């Protein structure tokens, strides 16, 4: 008897939260936005990360060989700039950065997905930069020297010798950053961006029932993360199996 009424209640809750008034759409559009924001911010993050890592590691790698020329001073300036960027973006909460971008700097715009992508991308860039820089600095200096001794210039050595090895080393870390980013975007709702979490929250606000929508949201995140983790594991095994 009790079991039956419990089951009836579940059915009722499900109907109320997802079926009535097509409320499931809050979940699907939210999921679409979450995936879009994650993907766009990852792309932006990788671009920013590569540029910053390039500046930072070039500056470090050429420290003792380079003459104190004008070009070196310019590089030093950008290196300092990158350091400030990394310090600020890693030193403040991403929610605060998101709100500053959405509610202060671009308060006139209501393109929530684009602004959230920008915010998470700028933030992710700082982390990706350090991942890639770590990957470059981890390559034995002998690889640079061998490349240079064959007549490659700095960029050719980077492109043909160092970066292929770096990509292999940092790919798993980058994919983990992608997974972290997916979960991080759940705070987008603080700036009224309609992501997955915000969708669940919207339903709950209408039905005054939190259990179903939030469990649904949690299960969707979990499924996505488990799938991506499985992919990372496969990629890691692939990289190891042809690890020469």
């Amino acid at each position, binding site marked *: 008897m009790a079991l039956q009424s419990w089951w009836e209640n579940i059915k009722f809750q499900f109907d109320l939260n997802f079926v009535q008034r097509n409320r499931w759409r809050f979940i699907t559009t939210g999921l679409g936005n979450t995936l879009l924001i994650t993907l766009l911010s990852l792309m932006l993050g990788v671009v920013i990360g590569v540029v910053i890592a390039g500046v930072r590691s070039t500056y470090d790698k050429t420290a*003792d*060989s380079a*003459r104190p020329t004008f070009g070196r001073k310019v590089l030093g300036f950008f290196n300092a700039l990158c350091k400030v960027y990394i310090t600020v973006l890693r030193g403040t909460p991403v929610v605060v950065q998101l709100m500053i971008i959405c509610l202060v700097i671009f308060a006139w715009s209501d393109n929530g997905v684009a602004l959230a992508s920008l915010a998470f991308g700028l933030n992710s860039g700082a982390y990706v930069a350090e991942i890639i820089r770590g990957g470059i600095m981890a390559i*034995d200096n*002998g*690889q640079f*020297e*061998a490349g*240079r*001794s*064959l*007549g*490659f*210039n700095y960029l*050719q050595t980077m492109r*043909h*010798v160092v970066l*292929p*090895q770096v990509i*292999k080393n940092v790919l798993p870390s980058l994919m983990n950053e992608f997974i972290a980013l997916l979960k991080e975007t759940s705070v987008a709702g603080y700036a009224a961006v309609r992501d997955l979490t915000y969708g669940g929250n919207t339903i709950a606000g209408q039905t005054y029932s939190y259990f179903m929508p939030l469990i649904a949201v949690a299960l969707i995140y979990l499924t996505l993360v488990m799938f991506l983790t499985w992919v990372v594991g496969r990629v890691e095994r692939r990289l190891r199996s042809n*690890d*020469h």
Partner: protein
Amino acid sequence: MTTDVLIRVEGLEKHFGGRIHALNGVSAEIRKGEVVVVIGPSGSGKSTFLRCLNLLEMPSAGKITFEGVDITDPKVNINLHRQKMGMVFQHFNLFPNMTVLKNMTVAPVTLHKKSREAAEVLAKQLLERVGLADRAGAYPNQLSGGQKQRIAIVRALCMEPDVMLFDEPTSALDPEMVGEVLDVMKQLAREGMTMVVVTHEMGFAREVGDRVIFMDGGRIIEQGTPEQVFEHPENPRLKEFLGKIL
């Protein structure tokens, strides 16, 4: 041996961080076809001297003339000159993500010295000569230390350099693999390659070297034919050094 000077070094100095003086005014000449062996205790500056020759270390002062060009001049494109100066490292520094063949051809092909086909033909000939023709498709981690170093030598030769610089090429090898690498170097010397070799292999220095340079404290202390240096050393520090190692 002709008497054309290939590399002329004048007043070379190298300071690290202003305090450590690795080189204190080294002057030397490397003639075409000559095998010059540089010996000396560790910390004597011999590796730094070698690495300055292709500007892997930027000299603090002094002048290096290679084939008539002052390569320490900042306006000179050092990359073009490095293409003619092969270098072999103590730790091989093969590219781990490339096959042996790719290791050898990536530089000549990318730098447009050769077509891919021509580079591969040359690479295979060189592999044949060092007895590793069957390892063209192998990756460096599938090779023994001696094989790695032989590949590193032919990788440098693939650029058809005018001089080969060897930085302690056998120091990181297991003793039983030293011979196979030295054999390749001897063969190279017989074929008339100009070589500058930093090594602790006194047997090699004696047998193959046209000239032996003894360095200590960042200076050239004594130099001459192997016979002069090993049989009739004059400087007390050289005598002491030889007494310790021979």
